[in-house]
């Protein structure tokens, strides 16, 4: 029996506005085990280390895993065997490296993707969002709709994240740790270096001898993790309100199919088992003693909360049906395009329009046109036509370093270059 309409209540304008999941976790060692939160660099008046906020009532909260970090852990599951059929698998080839769009920090808006042969298609897809259809972007990069995207390098389209997750620890007690490195032998007795050099290097972690392990090096009072007396909790949110902002123009059937598809992917993200290895010293599992305090609710616009009963398997089943109904976009491996990147790096979106100025650089497949202080690389190809004034000419006569030209560019390639 079809599962497809099961969550249509979530997609109605007067339906619940969000799903919220709160899961109690614990270190694999036990509730009172030591867990290592994320560390952050010093800056401002922050001395660096764990992000722990303390309050007047003597309580505190430590950040274990941020929203960005959680998204980066969850998004790549869509490349795994169990889930890869749900989305198009898009990769960009750069030399010997292949980068999945799921790994690109800025998703569909990432520069590495925008400088591939997929760029015109992606640009059109982002422009379609502005025109009222998120379908094209869902055909290429549906997880960009789940985890949010900003096409900061081009169209400026911003789509809010539908799904977010954070892990925090409460009432934490900080620990420190110290260690002592002992070299296997006393190298100074072998006259590798003098006693004076040894004395100078010991304890100085920046000294080359210490760095290379020739002398004793103590490490004192570094971050030793925390004990979370108040427990560890993962808060995950699926914003149905954000989901309902996705449209396919005025086509209600396609809009419904799109929303079901993105809902399916988002339900997989929110129900994906959270436990796991976050970093050294931070392996978390569900806390069985607080299982009855876990909460998975539908939040109404009035703030009212109703229990939501949904398992990960059910989410997967629903997502699969929704993906089939929507029609998953084709998987592709596309090459990175150097010229496109050059144009992008120069800060000029020379995709379409007129460019005039002096030719400052001539390469095999491109020329650079300078106007004022700005260099604009323009790709030339077999379809480019050359003119001297009104008369058609050829490459050799028109493309001359130092000549003033006017180039008409379409889709990043010069279609007409006229020498003035």
């Amino acid at each position, binding site marked *: 029996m079809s599962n497809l309409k099961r969550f249509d209540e979530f997609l109605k*304008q*007067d339906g619940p*506005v*969000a799903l*919220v999941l709160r899961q109690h976790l614990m270190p694999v060692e036990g509730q009172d085990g030591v867990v290592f939160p994320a560390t*952050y*660099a010093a*800056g*401002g008046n*922050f001395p*660096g280390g764990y*992000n722990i*906020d*303390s309050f*007047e009532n003597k309580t505190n*909260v430590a*950040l274990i895993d*941020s929203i960005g970090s959680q998204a980066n852990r969850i998004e790549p599951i869509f490349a795994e065997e169990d889930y890869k059929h749900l989305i198009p698998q898009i990769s960009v080839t*750069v*030399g010997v*490296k292949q980068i999945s769009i799921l790994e690109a*920090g*800025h998703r569909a808006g*990432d*520069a*590495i*993707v925008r*400088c591939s042969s997929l760029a015109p298609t992606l640009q059109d897809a982002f422009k379609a969002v*502005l*025109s*009222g259809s998120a379908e094209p972007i869902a055909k290429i990069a549906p997880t960009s709709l789940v985890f*949010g995207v900003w096409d900061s*390098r081009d*169209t*400026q389209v911003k789509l*809010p994240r539908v799904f977010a997750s954070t892990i925090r620890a409460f009432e934490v007690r900080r620990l420190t740790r110290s260690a002592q490195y002992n070299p296997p032998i006393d190298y100074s007795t072998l006259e590798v270096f003098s006693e004076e050099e040894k004395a100078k290097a010991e304890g100085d972690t920046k000294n080359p001898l210490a760095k290379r392990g020739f002398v004793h090096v103590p490490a004192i009072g570094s971050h030793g993790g925390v004990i979370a007396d108040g427990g560890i909790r993962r*808060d995950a*949110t699926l*914003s149905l*309100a*954000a989901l*309902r*902002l996705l*449209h396919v*123009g005025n086509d209600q059937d396609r809009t419904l199919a799109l929303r079901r598809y993105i809902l399916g992917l988002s339900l997989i993200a929110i129900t994906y088992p959270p436990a796991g290895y976050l970093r050294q010293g931070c392996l978390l599992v569900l806390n069985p003693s607080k299982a009855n305090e876990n909460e998975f609710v539908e*939040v109404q*616009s009035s*703030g009212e909360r109703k229990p939501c009963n949904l398992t990960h398997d059910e989410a997967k089943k629903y997502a699969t049906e929704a993906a089939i109904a929507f029609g998953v976009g084709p998987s592709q491996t596309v090459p*990175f395009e*150097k010229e496109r*990147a050059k144009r*992008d*790096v120069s*800060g*000029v*979106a*020379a995709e379409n*329009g007129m*460019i005039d100025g002096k030719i400052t650089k001539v390469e095999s497949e491109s020329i650079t046109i300078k106007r004022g202080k700005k260099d*604009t690389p323009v790709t030339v190809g077999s379809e480019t036509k050359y003119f001297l004034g009104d008369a058609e000419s050829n490459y050799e006569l028109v493309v001359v370093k130092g000549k003033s030209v006017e180039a008409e560019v379409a889709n990043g390639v010069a279609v007409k270059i006229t020498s003035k």
Partner: protein
Amino acid sequence: MKTQLCVTIRYLQPLSHGRGAGGEPEWPPTPLRLFQALVAAAAARWNERMVLAYAVPALRWLEGRPFPIIVAAPAQISEVKCQFYVPDNTGDLLVPAFTRGDLQRGVNRSEKIILPVHLNGEAVHYIYELTDGECPHIETLTAAARSITHLGWGIDMAVGNAAIMDEKEVSALKGEVWRPVPDSSGTPLRVPIQGTLDALISKHEAFLNRLSKDGFKPVPPLSTFKVVRYRRATDSASKPWIAFQILRPEADRIASFDTPRRCRDVAAWVRHVTGQVCDGWPFGSTESFVHGHAGPNRQLKGEEADKRFSYLPLPTINHALNRVEAIRRVLITAPPGFQDRIDWIRRRLPGQDLIDLEGEVKGILNILPTNNWVLEQYTTESCCWSTVTPVMWPGHDDNDARKAEKLLRNAFIHAGLAPEVVAGIEELDWRPVGFRAGLDLAQNYRRPENLNGRMYHVRVKFAHPVRGPLAVGAGRYRGFGLFAKAEV
């Protein structure tokens, strides 16, 4: 029953990261922030990402409403400025490294300082007065509010709603009540005004077109809004004031006056000279505001009674010896919202003589820098305060301690403190003997004419910091019942 429009935002996590002007954490979220979220939500809800149309009449109506009252969950700003590093969108710059086979290179990262506000609750309500009891756009505004997905940063996921509420429902909302105030105290918050919607539409257009073949075009910041100060009931209203030091008539050094014997006189001299410089006073009669009279030999009463200057001689607090000494300075305060009166006398009083009843010059007023340490003992914030001149009871306590406490608490309310602040007083003591070294017995202070209430020294500890100057009781306009900061 009066009805109001309530737009509610519920945060889905107990944090907010929105920053106000100057980059400081912002709480409560400003009405402008809500308005911007509604505009964005409307554009997405009706699929009008390029040209807003459907909700325009409703949004124009909303931007023209009087400033809303805000009921917000209590919140606390994080103490830890945590520095995150977010990846720049410059993956293309890694290509040369990848081509060389260096696959480990990562993109550059930019510093991003995170300073969240931790919420003790989830909701923020914006209450808009409905002048004729009707909200003609409630359906549109409700749909737009329910389409809000974030308020603040992109990580501040939230859900919204809008509803018409009566006063009873509004008063039942949980949270701290923030009201717009006309004076310069309180938290400055941006609010939309007529024209904000058009300005936002223009800004959005500029944002979408900021990158073009002509290069980068900076997007001008939004400027069509107003900054309005909001204050909670528990925040003390800031009274405008001007402070002087009193020089000897020879102007060779600072004059000093014995506090118990001359406090009333110094206050009277300052009031007299203020009246003398008020020729051309543009704010109506000087009789009430400057002299505190309703007419010849008639005291001000009722609501107008507090609309007047207070003349507060300031006993010196000796920092090194931690004791109260003679009067060498004087403060003139006005009620909140009357900064213009203070500004007016600020331009005229410096250099004026203080003259006693016999016509003898007793001193010269000289402007006192605001960072004067003694002055700061009277004008900054503190939870603990104690008197440097006794409080004159504003009624009879019949020697009943409970009546006395009630009188005293009322005296704080009459002095301008919110009832919530007075109700939250944690410690309240009074006695004839001072709570500071250098004070005389309360009954030894020469009282002003016509004031005959019992006098006590008082010490108070509030639950929330209260900003000075703080003078309470029947003689509060004439230097009695004046408090200075005390040790916690």
